């Protein structure tokens, strides 16, 4: 069955520390891959996407993600977290113009 898995429900990180959010997918072919962020009370904002080509993708707000076909993973990273990065992060897979979302990872940033 097709699925998107975000293994970490909640991550707490200190401001200035690095952050990595995990995402694994299970699909028959390599789908399109996305990371979205949802701040409290807000809609979803696209951070970055991967369709093909370079497997290291740069996004907005200093985020990057790396696609690893052998591991069916698309992990999101940020070298130095800011307090404003506290939010819910969703990995999503696109197939046939539709998106399937992971369960999300809540990121808490401590001072």
């Amino acid at each position, binding site marked *: 069955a097709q699925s998107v898995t975000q293994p970490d429900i909640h991550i707490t990180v200190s401001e200035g520390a690095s952050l990595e959010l995990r995402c694994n997918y299970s699909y028959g072919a390599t789908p*399109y891959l*996305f990371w979205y962020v949802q701040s409290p009370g807000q*809609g*979803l904002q696209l951070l970055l996407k991967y369709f093909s080509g370079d497997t290291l993708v740069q996004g907005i707000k200093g985020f990057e993600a790396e696609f690893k076909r052998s591991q069916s993973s698309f992990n999101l990273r940020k070298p130095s977290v800011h307090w404003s990065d506290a939010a819910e992060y969703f990995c999503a897979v*696109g197939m046939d*113009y539709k998106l399937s*979302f992971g*369960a999300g990872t809540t990121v808490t940033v401590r001072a």
Partner: protein
Amino acid sequence: SAVISQKPSRDICQRGTSLTIQCQVDSQVTMMFWYRQQPGQSLTLIATANQGSEATYESGFVIDKFPISRPNLTFSTLTVSNMSPEDSSIYLCSTSGLAGADTQYFGPGTRLTVL
């Protein structure tokens, strides 16, 4: 990317009533999508709405409960009918642009509470 607005931003409704949510895009787009985000949950696709054709519903969602209109290339509505407390969710619309590209951009969402 398209700018998407939704009305209302939030509402509190009584059981058994219906609410229509509007989604407006600032440019013409081919595909529009409606999602539901139940409290503390991820997003689930309700249906895909293309202009000039009937909406396509995902498994578990039916037209009688969630009728959708798509009268033109910039506008869509989702109605939540005969509401119950289980319908309390955030409802989001999204679009992938005129070319039907695979990147979706989302509206701010409508937070619905059913008493």
